[in-house]
């Protein structure tokens, strides 16, 4: 029977940052690489400007409602990089010294901002991350900067992986960028991986892993219908010597939970310590007269002084005044201007000073009339890693309700006092900045409908030094299951106080030489050392000296 089973050297689950980066390097190094992606593979002209169910807006997203936490993630070839807003800041130094809920440093000793910097450099080179200029900031970002300045705060244009020469400021980034302005993995790592022989299979949803008699892994998948994800079109298996798990922090632990019956006991931290990156949203409704009078802003041409909620490219400006390592844990956060499209979160915005219900009804309709004058502020705080996954659903990571996007999952999240402390401080800060002199009225989004809400799920299968509170060692290998590596957001130990894509990607780059070494040990002919996907080599020069075999553990 085994003669008929398909085999590959390295099987990668998921094609977002964690999967694409590993796939590229392993394929470029000579391994046979197969990538299974549960979502569809959209080409550029399929990225639509359309909110209709069934358009790219819903095809490439996965929105899983849990008990106390809802998670928005990517669901397509390219994963989160296709739906993200390309904000790519490095995590501040203090983040790596966080203790969180465990009373000791939660990151592995070998990972700090200093040791991660060369890997961040590689990502900056590979994804063309650049420091944005003030001239790149959207009206919403400019307004946020002006309000911060008026309140005596600083504000920065965000580092971003966007080619501004191609960007049309359509604010449809979440539906995929058809202009190739956003540096999604579909324009760098993935085509480079394919050029080196990697094979990517969309609509293949991995369910669980088993072992083969000779110690390899057998990966079991279902084929998902390309339009109605509630339907399945068969199943199959592939055997691999090495498995790289990068299904996302909402899915990787679920696959491992389902595999436990076959592979043996999983580390305790699989499916625990989930973090929503401490995220929290606030909606401000601007007083346009005050915007003109107090901030001196104007758009000319008869337009409102601000009134530009729809215009831009996600977040463009953030305030980092509270990213101060001398402050106590749970009181450090960034405040970032963000665009949130209609449909996905409008219902959670609450009416300031409501006399009736805050999220629906007459008064809610009135603030919807002022939607153009909304400014959304995204607070990334420090949470307590309090998310825990319950028993896995029958297939995938949720019970799918709608044909696409919407499902019900088994993540439970009960925010602790620490987490609430961070959220409350951030909310109060946003209010202080934006309500100063009557500029705006501000309310946080409600947690009462779908719980808290994260677009950056993390830490559900995290790395660390302590086997009791981390699922992975500091090489991203799953404890007790050699040959399984986890390289997605679930490996990040905790909230980062900034957008995490840069850190997820840098950790994946850092994990690659360890995966290569493990593959070599299993007899796979593979080498490490490929340049950036576009062929640039300066970043490679920075990390190659770190990779002498005897020093590998210290990378």
């Amino acid at each position: 029977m085994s003669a008929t089973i398909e085999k590959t050297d390295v099987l990668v689950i998921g094609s977002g940052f964690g999967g694409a980066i590993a796939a590229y390097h392993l394929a470029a190094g000579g391994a046979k690489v197969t990538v299974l992606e549960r979502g569809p593979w959209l080409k550029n002209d399929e990225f639509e400007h359309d909110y209709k169910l069934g358009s790219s807006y819903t095809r490439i997203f996965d929105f899983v409602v849990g008990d106390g936490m809802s998670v928005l993630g990517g669901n397509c070839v390219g994963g989160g990089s296709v739906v993200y807003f390309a904000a790519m800041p490095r995590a501040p130094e203090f983040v790596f010294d966080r203790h969180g809920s465990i009373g000791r440093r939660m990151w592995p000793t070998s990972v700090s901002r200093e040791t991660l910097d060369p890997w961040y450099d590689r990502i900056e080179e590979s994804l063309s991350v650049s420091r944005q200029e003030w001239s790149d900031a959207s009206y919403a970002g400019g307004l946020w900067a002006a309000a911060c300045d008026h309140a005596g705060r600083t504000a920065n244009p965000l580092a971003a992986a966007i080619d501004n020469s191609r960007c049309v400021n359509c604010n449809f980034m979440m539906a995929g960028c058809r202009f190739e302005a956003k540096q999604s993995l579909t324009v760098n790592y993935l085509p480079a991986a394919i050029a080196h022989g990697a094979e990517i299979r969309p609509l293949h949803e991995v369910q669980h892993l088993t072992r083969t008699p000779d110690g390899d892994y057998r990966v079991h998948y279902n084929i998902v219908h390309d339009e109605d994800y509630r339907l399945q079109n068969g199943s199959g298996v592939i055997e691999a010597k090495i498995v790289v798990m990068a299904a996302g922090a909402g899915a990787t632990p679920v696959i491992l939970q389902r595999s436990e019956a076959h592979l043996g006991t999983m580390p305790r931290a699989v499916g625990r310590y989930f973090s929503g990156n401490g995220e929290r949203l606030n909606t401000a409704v601007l007083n346009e007269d005050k915007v003109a009078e107090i901030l001196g802003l104007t758009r000319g041409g008869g337009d409102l002084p601000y009134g530009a909620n729809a215009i831009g490219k996600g977040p463009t400006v953030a305030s980092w005044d509270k990213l101060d390592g001398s402050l106590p844990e749970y009181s450090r956060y960034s405040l970032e201007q963000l665009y949130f499209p209609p449909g996905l979160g409008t219902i959670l915005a609450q009416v300031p000073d409501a006399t009736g219900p805050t999220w629906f009804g007459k008064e809610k309709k009135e603030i919807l009339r002022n939607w153009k004058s909304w400014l959304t502020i995204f607070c990334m705080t420090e949470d307590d890693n309090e998310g825990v996954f319950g028993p896995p659903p029958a297939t995938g990571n949720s019970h799918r309700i709608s044909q696409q996007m919407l499902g019900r999952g088994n993540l439970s999240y009960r925010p602790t006092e620490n987490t609430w402390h961070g959220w409350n401080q951030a909310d109060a800060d946003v209010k202080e900045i934006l309500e100063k002199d009557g500029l705006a009225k501000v309310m946080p989004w409600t947690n009462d409908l779908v719980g808290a809400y994260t677009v950056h799920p993390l830490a559900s299968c995290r790395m660390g030094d302590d086997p009791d509170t981390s699922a992975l060692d500091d090489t991203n290998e799953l404890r007790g299951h050699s040959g399984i590596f986890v390289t997605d957001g679930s490996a990040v130990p905790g909230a980062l106080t900034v957008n995490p894509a840069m850190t997820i990607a840098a950790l994946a780059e850092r994990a690659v030489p360890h995966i290569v070494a493990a593959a070599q040990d299993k007899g796979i002919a593979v080498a490490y050392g490929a340049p950036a996907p576009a062929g640039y080599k300066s970043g490679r020069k920075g990390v190659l000296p770190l990779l002498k075999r005897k020093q590998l553990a210290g990378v």
Partner: protein
Amino acid sequence: MQTARRIPERRVDIGDEATITLEAYADTIVPGAKRWPGDRAIAGVSSDGGAVAAGALDLLRWDATGIHDGLEDLAGRANGHALAYAERAGLELDAAVPPFVALDYDDRVRLIQELTTPGHPEKDFWVLLSLFCNMAFDSAAHLHTAQALEDGHPGLTAMGITQPDTDGLWRFQDFGYGRQLAAPHPHTTHSGSPA
């Protein structure tokens, strides 16, 4: 611009009682103007189109939502809760329309607040129903956006969403104030990250 769909759109048929009940529910989420004198579903607390005029029932009945098969049941439950609410509140309901429809706007609001309060055993259903009612208005999730705008969709129009270019894509040539508006944080790296 619009990708051809291969699965034909299917909408479930629901009875008159369920329809008017769900219209009344949707109208409580995003209120609208009465469509005709004596319109019982629409409470009439707003002067222009709300969720119902935006097409809430079209969206709810579409099988893509996953809520379509439960609509009759939800309408029945809404009416059951309305009866119990009226009894508690000492209200006498007009028997000519379903109980939820017989409630006035403020009572409909209070009942939906009860049903969506964390801890209510049916909360998930009512939140889902509310979510889709709201989506009909704020994103016209049952219609192609550009076409909906062209046809004067009440929600997208009220929110001030502009028309796209002729190819159905949005582009904004003027997108920012184009000048520095705050001092950057002193500990910023050369590539624009926090130190």
